[in-house]
């Protein structure tokens, strides 16, 4: 048996700042550190924005003037914790359906050594698989990322 926890990504870092500041930079200051190369827009990314409330959008603004949604705030407990839906399809486009999105939880706690411990968990990759109950190609062209996601789907289903 493989549980969901086995395929989640967990990261912890210590930031030399208060909990409030660490939370503020992560969220309000999201654009100041988000890797510029990481977006799903069709043109260069300009700004990365998290709307700081439950239901808030996570999106980028693009050089061509469009906005590009990629997530949504599911839980919001400043300055300690928040959860966002990572709304990416199996073809790396926007996924409007939350039930098919992976999610990321970030927690901020005071570290005994001073500073703030930031714990991140990215989980439920198995939700990203395409629809359908057969392990067939069928989606996307040759070499499409869909085939990779079929692999993951197969693995997730075998693990049940």
């Amino acid at each position: 048996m493989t549980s969901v926890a086995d395929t989640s990504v967990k990261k912890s870092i210590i930031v030399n700042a208060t909990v409030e500041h660490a939370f503020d930079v992560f969220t309000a200051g999201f654009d100041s550190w988000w890797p510029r190369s990481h977006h799903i827009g069709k043109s260069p990314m300009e700004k990365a924005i998290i709307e700081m409330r439950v239901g808030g959008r996570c999106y980028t603004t693009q050089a061509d003037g469009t906005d590009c949604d990629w997530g949504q705030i599911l839980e919001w407990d400043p300055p300690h914790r928040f959860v966002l839906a990572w709304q990416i399809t199996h073809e790396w486009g926007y996924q409007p359906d939350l039930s098919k999105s992976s999610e990321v939880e970030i927690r901020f706690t005071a570290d005994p050594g001073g500073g703030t411990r930031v714990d991140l968990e990215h989980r439920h990759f198995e939700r990203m698989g395409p629809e359908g109950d057969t392990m067939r190609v069928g989606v996307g062209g040759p070499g499409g990322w869909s085939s990779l996601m079929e692999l993951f789907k197969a693995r997730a289903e075998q693990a049940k």
Partner: protein
Amino acid sequence: MVTYQHAQQLDALGDPTRRAILESLLKGPLPVGELARGLPVSRPAVSQHLRILKHARLVVDRPEGNRRLYALNPAGVEALRAYFDRFWDQALAAYKRAAETRASETPHE
């Protein structure tokens, strides 16, 4: 966020021939000769790609008679996890720098 441009970060999957091989194997295990028949590359080239896919743990092989059968590694979900594992290392390092730079500019303690 993942972009098409970051395909190369999953190195083994950054090559169209290797993705085509994986796609072929979705239908079931195949020997190298049959894989090569469906692809516009030589059999030695397919063998080389299979070595890379094996090394990346996306493909497994087993002997059957006097040939080897290649199949998808059911543990291949590890590749997706590994991608995000690396991605978050990179992103959180950038975040830590930003938080500590701004912390020194506007002290909170």
